């Protein structure tokens, strides 16, 4: 299972980002979310949304092996073991592996909680195999 996105349906509202931060960190903060929204305005006037495909490249390069599989079969960061080395960030093909030391003491990524899908009003996000 993984998260999918159809960027053409995305309206750029960022509800998913708030829901993501709330589930991942128990905090309200769209800057601490694991989806990557890029607006292309005023032209050509489209949103581009990148999501984690659970490819596992991040886990493969993690020197402390702190990126692990959870019960949903998704890779997540064990915050306590992360050393902020950023090796995972460079490996992520979708730019959704985050290290922002001013915001959090560990790297973070999508753990497939599904809350983003719950709040997406345009059907741009879904979970499937």
């Amino acid at each position, binding site marked *: 299972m993984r998260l999918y996105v159809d960027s053409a349906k995305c309206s750029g509202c*960022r509800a998913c980002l708030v829901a993501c931060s709330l589930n991942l960190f128990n905090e309200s*903060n769209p800057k601490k979310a694991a989806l990557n929204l890029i607006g292309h305005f005023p*032209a050509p*006037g489209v*949103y581009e949304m990148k999501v984690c495909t659970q490819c596992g490249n991040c886990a493969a390069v993690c020197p402390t092996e702190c990126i692990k599989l959870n019960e949903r079969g998704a890779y997540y960061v064990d915050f306590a073991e992360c050393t902020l080395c950023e090796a995972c960030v460079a490996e992520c093909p979708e730019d959704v592996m985050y290290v922002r030391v001013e915001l959090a003491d560990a790297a973070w990524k999508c753990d497939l909680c599904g809350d983003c899908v*719950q709040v997406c*009003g*345009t059907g741009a996000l879904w979970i499937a195999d």
Partner: protein
Amino acid sequence: MNGYGGSILRVNLTDNKLTKEPTPPELARDFIGGRGFGIYHLLREVPRGADPLGPENKLIISSGPLSGMLSAGGGKCDWTTKSPLTNGYASASMGGHFTAEMKYAGIDTIILEGISPTPVYLLIDDNKLQLLDASFLWGKGAIDAEVALKNKHGEEFQIAAIGPGGENLVPYACVNHDFGRQAGRGGVGTVMGQKKLKAIVIRGTKSVPVADAQAYRKAGIDLYRACIEAEGHDEWTRYGTTIVTSWCDEVGALPTRNFSAGSFEDGKNIYGPVMRKEIVITDKGCFGCPCPCGKYSRSRRYGTYVEGPEYETIGLMGSNLGIGDIEAVAEANRLADDLGLDSISAGNTIAWAMECYEKGMLTQEDTDGLDLRFGNIEAAFAAIKKIAYREGKLGQLLAQGVKRAAEQIGKGSDKFAIHVKGMEQSAYATHNATAMLLAYMTCDVGAHHNRSWAITYDLQVGRDKVVPEKVARIIWLQNFRPMFDVLGSCRLQWVELGIDRDLYVPLLEAVTGIHRTWEDLEAVGDRIWNLTRMYWVRENPGFGRSWDLPSPRFYEEAPKTGATAGQITNYEDVQCLLDMYYEQRGWDDNGIPTPQTLQKLNIAVQTH
């Protein structure tokens, strides 16, 4: 403080002084946020009789406890100032993503004071606060300025900017944000231009504290699910506000040729589905919106992009100008946005000029050679540009707003200047819709629709009926609907999807830790409504009943065509509406809140 950024940012542009102070908890308790904060600071801090374009006037930007939160449509902030258009209370609601950045930068309210000696812009990057030179932006369109500032500071920053209309002090200049969202009405962009503040650039990366994160998550998701699963969600989202265009045309509410009628013979060419098919390229949501009304469009003919047009602009720059061409309306919309003009006031004012021209009250000498007939697309574009730059006789005339322009021209043209209190009426023709007419007459900023909207109620009760139930309905809406502007969340989820408003109660409690029912919130709304009324009383000697009268067009001149042909509201009924309204509000015959009413609401405003 749970649910709040926690601070007020005070920017003194005269002295280049930026200071922060905590948001007082009792202010949050009594006024909650948004529009509530706005009127509180306006009454307390802007001295009585201040010149709207003087250094004493302030521009107050406030988010609310649901702004930026997991609240369906928490993208709203309020811009309050003393209006250079009306000399009264101005409060414009802006969607988009600006308010969320405020909250996450730890700021509930930005108070802009004084006047900068040179053009500047305000940079807020969490705790980093700076006024920076804006000479390279001055003169640029609002959209170009936004592009330049995004390129300079980064995609994560949100930008609110004025265009040439604000720089040139057109009294209905708007603030533009996110390539197509505006704080549109009442001249908030004018005040910003007068302060020589070209733009605000903001990013916030802090977390907003909440009282109960788990309850917040649950209540937030419940609200989203209710919106997404609501019947009509998909259709509403497909068309946005343009869903009503065809219906307004059918029932005679679509302003046509300066509100001389309510149905337009070329209406079919500007309906929502035509727009969706011809020009829309994506839905564009404000922060956190599950049913985005924003439609982003591309015009092949003009080679341009614009957010919209939404219903108001279609009404005022389409049918009201006799233009039945959705692509032309979109281009007029883009011009108004980029030049920084409120498309409602601009469209309304140009329509008045077109009527003057067709009646011979304005000649080609007055229009700088423009053939300003209804339906002349190129003339409409030219007029918009002239207004923003105050160019030529026409630009200078129309850049005053419709009320002052009609006073200058005379010849009876004030009879068809469609405004209340000097604010141009938005896009509902009210020849035969007495509740809606009363809504415009008594709206606290002038002839604007967003406080209360009641045309369906008119249809339900009987359009021409003048009964206490209609008045009660308007008062209830005026107390209730603006509370969304206080909370910082959009009203359209409730308005258009018909979701249960009680879904907001547990959400607000989880966020702020304070339990408030809608009854509690409406009481705050009632108090704010009376405070804004007292602001008008305080600022305008002689303020009273006559200020609440609508344009004579709605009681003297029945439309000749369309669904409301031959229909009109009697002048006696207009007065009767006011009698009932004042009585139910607890105001005197002149429309002034009585001492007993003020005492009951715990309001003390020094008016003399």
